[in-house]
């Protein structure tokens, strides 16, 4: 069975999480298994129970070393996942989806995969002076794809980052697979 990895930092009752849910739902409809990886956040949140009900595995860990961890279970889990995603992600997953460009600092260097998709879920107006705080180096790999959910984001990214963007950028609508 095909498997994909979806990565984010929260499972609250909010828009980015609803996107994870709809993406996971669509994957399920298409015979594709999903693992959800939540980085640097060990709380139990709204969608944990929802995904459990759907039979979707949620892993909470960090991809940024283990120095800040105290709990041995969390340390072991972090070591396991850091190795798995740095060395073997291509073997286990057909694609990797990082939700929110604001999560790239915490994840992009820890996941080596030939099909990485970065879902862009904000607009510039949500940031001070309407300037995105994202590192331009995150857009340097031509194998990666930024997926915008509205055309304004495409304009904003091109205006701010211009030639620094070497990855692919596509626009796809927000969608409901579950209705």
């Amino acid at each position, binding site marked *: 069975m095909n498997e*994909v990895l979806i990565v984010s930092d929260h499972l609250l009752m909010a828009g980015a999480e*609803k996107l994870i849910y709809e*993406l996971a739902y669509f*994957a399920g409809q298409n015979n594709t298994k999903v693992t959800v990886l939540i980085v640097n956040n060990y709380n139990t949140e709204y969608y944990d129970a929802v995904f459990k009900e759907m039979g979707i595995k949620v892993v909470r860990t960090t991809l940024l070393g283990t120095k800040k961890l105290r709990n041995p279970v969390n340390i072991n889990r972090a070591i396991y996942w850091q190795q798995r995603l740095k060395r073997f992600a291509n073997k286990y997953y057909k*694609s990797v989806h990082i939700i929110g460009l604001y999560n790239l600092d915490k994840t992009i260097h820890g996941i080596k995969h030939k*099909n990485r998709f970065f879902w862009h879920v904000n607009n510039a*107006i949500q940031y001070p002076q309407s300037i995105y705080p994202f590192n331009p180096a995150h857009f340097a790999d031509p194998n990666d794809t930024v997926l915008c959910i509205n055309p304004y984001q495409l304009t904003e990214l091109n205006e701010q980052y211009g030639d620094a963007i070497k990855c692919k950028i596509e626009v*796809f609508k927000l969608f*409901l*697979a579950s209705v």
Partner: protein
Amino acid sequence: MIQINVVARISEDKNAFFDLIFAAHQLANQDINDVHILFIGDILSEALHRSMVKLIDLFDLAGRVKFTEKSIRFADLDEEVKDGYFINFTIGNFMGFSGIESINMGLKTLFYNPVKTLSTQTVPSPSLARDMPSLVALLARISNNQGEMDKLIATDNLKMKADFLLMSDDKAFLKSVLIPTQSN
């Protein structure tokens, strides 16, 4: 009374709350005094809340613009509030999941684009106001002819929901993203 609801935490990353207070003020200037606005959500920024209350006071709207000051589950809202209009902010014509979830729950849902630079390229509809004058006009129309506007809004909301459904091209694209063809 026309009940307008805004479901959002009062926090500083939201920057369109003042627009609604200003719209209520504009309506009052047109002698439309039956539009009431309720902000439903926790106060995360006391500073922002104080500024909003100050503006409400300056515009003499204290009886018409109120706060729950805490998050309230939908089931626990008064019937009068549930029967009101739930306004969502857009970016141009782009609406997030909160708006579509509001429509899915069968609520009368309005949309407002607060981004001035996108107002002219925003395509308006019976439930979507492209800018401040359009928002004031929309609320005035509801105040003047609620029955007729409710029908238009309901039809428009259903049309918006349809835009979120996956057509065959969309499904093909999503499949190609989940399982890229070059993957092996």
